[in-house]
């Protein structure tokens, strides 16, 4: 087995581990193909099991023959290992470095992981497009499920099945696909039951400098409009960025060719800018200088909160067009795989109570992120600590989760899941034993045979014991549209992720548990009261003596 070549020293004794807010542990360090394990072989101390793929960067330092390795993880945790012996330390460090940066997907842990739990429901089959379409069919007959992309040839980043307007045959779709970036022709993302309006998403139109047009594309999106109604195109780029895109063959929908659509430009940051924002934010959070001014200016300079605000604002705009204006919406940026998905998925959380349940949210992530072709593997290859030059990395999904957290915080009773669920998704998007977030598209996932060879995250999550931990005790279904406040004053830093390892959450966790306990007990008592009432009513009807005065 090839991992063995990378592991020069598989085990070292007497290693001391320092973790934030946990007691120091001394024990044996073992390296396996996928894990860094530290065990003290004492019953009461917690072991450390760390996936190599969770390691973002390591630093080594020597004081005499005592080596210090600082391991910085993608989930933003920082731990320290003290290893005696220079050679051991160097070996361990270089092994970790090699193992944590393996590029080959098929060597990743999900392919080796065997579940230690009983799979009740196979997550790979939980959210198939055809099932989602059945729900749609119950509401409208204006859409059909097209198999035009069944071999991924038309659009490599789309799933095999997509929902398109009923009257458009696959031939037309093929023509439209040539006019959209990456073949991402407009498809249905959300149907608003209340008024029949829809949200679609696509890649940018390839108008180029000479203003190319595509009649089929125009017809396709016009087909979603009600007679006499206008629709909105939300372009997630600033107007000048969209203009510049023309020079590279891209562009935007010209008013002349799409007279029934009003185009709105919203600037959402992309790629490197977002990655740098994350790096700066995490750096600010770990700043030890103890100066309030410094912290607040670093927070401001990171621009992270601004990014959160811009994304939420755009999502609110999309939701507003649909719900308040009663208009259909098409969302796109350049590729339509990043900011576009942030907007369409957040708009659904605002509009659709179904997306605020545990299952509904999983389904949303599956539909709008995994099947919609967000390139998870590229975007989440490195996190905030990496020293390597970022290529395709960008915390697009993390920003989405942050936005969801903001809404959840503002509407604490409207979500069936709690913050832990969002944190869990963040962790697994970056490093996981499950195959869900592997690959960059449905096509890649099919090629890797993930459903056959790996376990789905949803299989693990959708078991009673996990669900219990992830559900919000305050949940009360709220069928209304929930409009989050996007005023800067209303948006908070997501402490649960960014300050998670810098603060002791013991007291907060205790309070949360206490609250859960109170609510549970309250429910129990309610049931008791109800059953006693029933018994009393029964006795009253059965026993005639009770009626005589």
């Amino acid at each position, binding site marked *: 087995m090839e991992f063995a070549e990378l592991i020069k020293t598989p085990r070292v004794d007497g290693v001391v581990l320092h973790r934030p807010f946990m007691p120091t542990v001394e024990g044996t360090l073992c390296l396996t193909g996928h894990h860094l394990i530290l065990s003290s072989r004492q019953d009461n101390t917690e072991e450390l099991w760390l996936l190599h793929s969770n390691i973002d960067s390591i630093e080594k330092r020597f004081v005499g023959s005592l080596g210090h390795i600082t391991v910085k993880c993608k989930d933003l945790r920082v731990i320290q290992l003290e290893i005696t012996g220079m050679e051991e330390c160097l070996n361990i460090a270089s092994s970790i470095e090699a193992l944590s940066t393996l590029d080959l997907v098929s060597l990743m842990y999900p392919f080796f992981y065997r579940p230690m739990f009983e799979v009740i429901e196979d997550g790979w089959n939980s959210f198939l497009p055809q099932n989602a379409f059945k729900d749609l069919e119950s509401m409208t007959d204006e859409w059909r499920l097209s198999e035009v992309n069944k071999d991924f040839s038309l659009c490599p980043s789309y799933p095999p099945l997509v929902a398109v307007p009923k009257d458009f045959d696959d031939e037309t779709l093929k023509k439209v696909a040539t006019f959209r970036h990456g073949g991402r022709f407009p498809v249905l993302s959300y149907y608003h039951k209340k008024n029949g309006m829809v949200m679609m998403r696509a890649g940018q139109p390839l108008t180029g400098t000479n203003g190319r047009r595509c009649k089929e594309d125009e017809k396709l999106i016009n087909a979603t409009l009600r007679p006499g109604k206008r629709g909105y195109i939300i372009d997630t780029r600033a107007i000048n960025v969209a203009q510049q895109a023309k020079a590279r063959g891209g562009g935007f929908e010209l008013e002349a060719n799409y007279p029934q659509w009003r185009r709105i430009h919203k600037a959402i940051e992309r790629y490197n800018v977002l990655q740098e924002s994350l790096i700066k934010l995490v750096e600010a959070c770990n700043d030890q200088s103890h100066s309030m001014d410094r912290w607040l200016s670093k927070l*401001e300079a990171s621009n992270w909160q601004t990014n959160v605000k811009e994304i939420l604002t755009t999502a609110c705009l999309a939701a507003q067009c649909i719900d308040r204006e009663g208009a259909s919406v098409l969302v796109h940026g350049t590729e339509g795989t990043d900011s576009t998905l942030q907007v369409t998925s957040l708009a659904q959380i605002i509009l659709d109570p179904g997306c605020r349940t545990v299952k509904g949210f999983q389904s949303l992530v599956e539909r709008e992120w995994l099947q919609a072709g967000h390139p998870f593997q590229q975007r989440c290859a490195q996190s905030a600590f990496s020293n390597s030059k970022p290529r395709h990395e960008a915390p697009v999904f993390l920003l989405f989760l942050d936005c969801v957290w903001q809404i959840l915080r503002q509407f604490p009773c409207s979500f069936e899941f709690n913050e832990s669920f969002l944190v869990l998704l963040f962790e697994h998007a970056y490093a996981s034993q499950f195959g869900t977030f592997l690959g960059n598209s449905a096509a890649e996932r099919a090629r890797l045979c993930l459903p056959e060879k790996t376990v789905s995250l949803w299989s693990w999550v959708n078991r009673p014991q996990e669900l219990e931990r992830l559900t919000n005790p305050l949940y009360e279904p709220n069928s209304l549209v929930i409009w989050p406040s996007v005023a*800067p*004053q*209303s948006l908070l830093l997501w402490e649960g992720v960014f300050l998670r390892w810098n603060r002791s959450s013991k007291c907060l966790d205790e*309070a949360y548990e206490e*609250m859960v306990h109170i609510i549970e007990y309250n429910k129990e008592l309610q049931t008791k009261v109800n059953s006693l009432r029933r018994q009393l009513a029964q006795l009253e009807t059965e026993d005639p003596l009770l009626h005589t005065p």
Partner: protein
Amino acid sequence: MEFAEHIKTANVEDVVLRQPLQPPSRGTLCITGHHLLFSDREESDSRQVLLLLRNIDAIEKRMSGSSGTITMKCKDLRVLQLDIPGMEQCLNIAHSIETLSCLDCVSAMYPFFYRPVDLSLPEQWGLSSPEMHYSQMKELYEKWRLSTVNRDYSVCPSYPPAVIVPKSIDDDTLKKAAKFRQGGRFPVLCYYHKKNGMVIMRSSQPLLGANRKRCKEDELLLQAVIEGSDKGYIIDTRSMQQAQQARMTGGGFESKSFYDRWKRFHRQMERGKALQESLIKLVEACGDESNNMDRWLSKLENSKWLSHVQNALSTAGLLVECVERDGHSVLVHGSEGTDCSLLISTLAQLIMDPCCRTMEGFLGLLEREWIQARHPFQQRCAHSAYSHARLQQESPVFLLLLDCVWQLWRQFPLALGFSEALLLRLATEVYASDYGTFLCNSDQERCALEVKERTHCLFRALLRPTERDYYSNPLYERTELAIWPSVHPQSLQLWKGYFLRWTQQVRHLEEAQEEIRNMVIEWGKLARS
């Protein structure tokens, strides 16, 4: 009655009231000597808004045609707007509000007129007295005594008639020591740490002056405090430089040569005007509607409010460290000893002493440290963040305390017996109240005006069963441990419940808390039945 001359128009019909979080409503406006009363005309679900005129910090009027608009900015940070038909009526109303909201005469204030039917004037005003407090602390008897040297307020006008001092120090020594401290505030005991018998004392600055006067009696008094221990600490809430400069104006600090067993720390805490300006900037930032994240964060930073919170908590942390970890007694003072000294001694007690973390305990603590030890409430809270009046003595020291307590509550949600709602209520009451608790600047003034005979006490009202239920923390579980707050800037947050109280999003959070509270109450009922 004298209010009448300020009220030219007492009633106006067809007024539109706009208030945050609610749709505008149309109705009748009345002005009385102390209140602004608005009742809307809806037959079915009629709503009334009763606002203490005292709560109004600033008003702005704008005329357009024959009608006018009055914007009222309240001390509880609410902003209300009245659309009044008729220019003359509008001007009259504005004039009445302007005059009546800042009447200076204390005995004309509403607490002297507040007579709710379900409440008779109390036999005892306040929760406790220095005498009662001393009598309950048996562990003090051996080394400490209750001195009534100040019974007629002649030794120190700002102290209560009875104070706790070392047993070995007689009243004559106290009198001499008092002359050596600003305003006569000689060192008195404010907290006894049962775990190790160490104490927190507070006082004002010693009056060294430029020629370095000394006072044997003051030295003796402090010597007696650390009898049997190797040393004590002095926490001066001014920077070294500020303390040096104070000598020019007759003040100063305890010099090493005369107080050789005392080790002095200087921790600069902002006070007075700077603090008031910080509040004004913060409130301005919170009301900023430019919708720009950078602007909000730089304004927040610029206001320095969170730095003041951090500073207060970390200085209190230092105090706790001296007493609890290091096991030594501490004397706290700044200049007057009526602002920052109280702030940090209060916080330190909350951090160390579980008895101060219950609702009674906390209110008792406020009574001892702020009412009896004299924080000049009337001067400090005359105006809040909106006033255009030139600042005089205003300073939100008490609000800063409440913010710090809120930070503690947020970091230790189980450890405090009261909830955020209590802090919000106190933050409102301190600026405008039906009760007499926060009237006047000292005990002496309170006696002169018969506050204790003629007004109701807020703290007692808050402890009535219904109120107590409302303000208690459903998650409370007593812990004997000290609750050490994290003072990392990353751990401290803006107190949204107060500063953003009148914006939409805080509402949903309140609803969630309300939900839990209801559940606990129901639970209690079910458990009893």
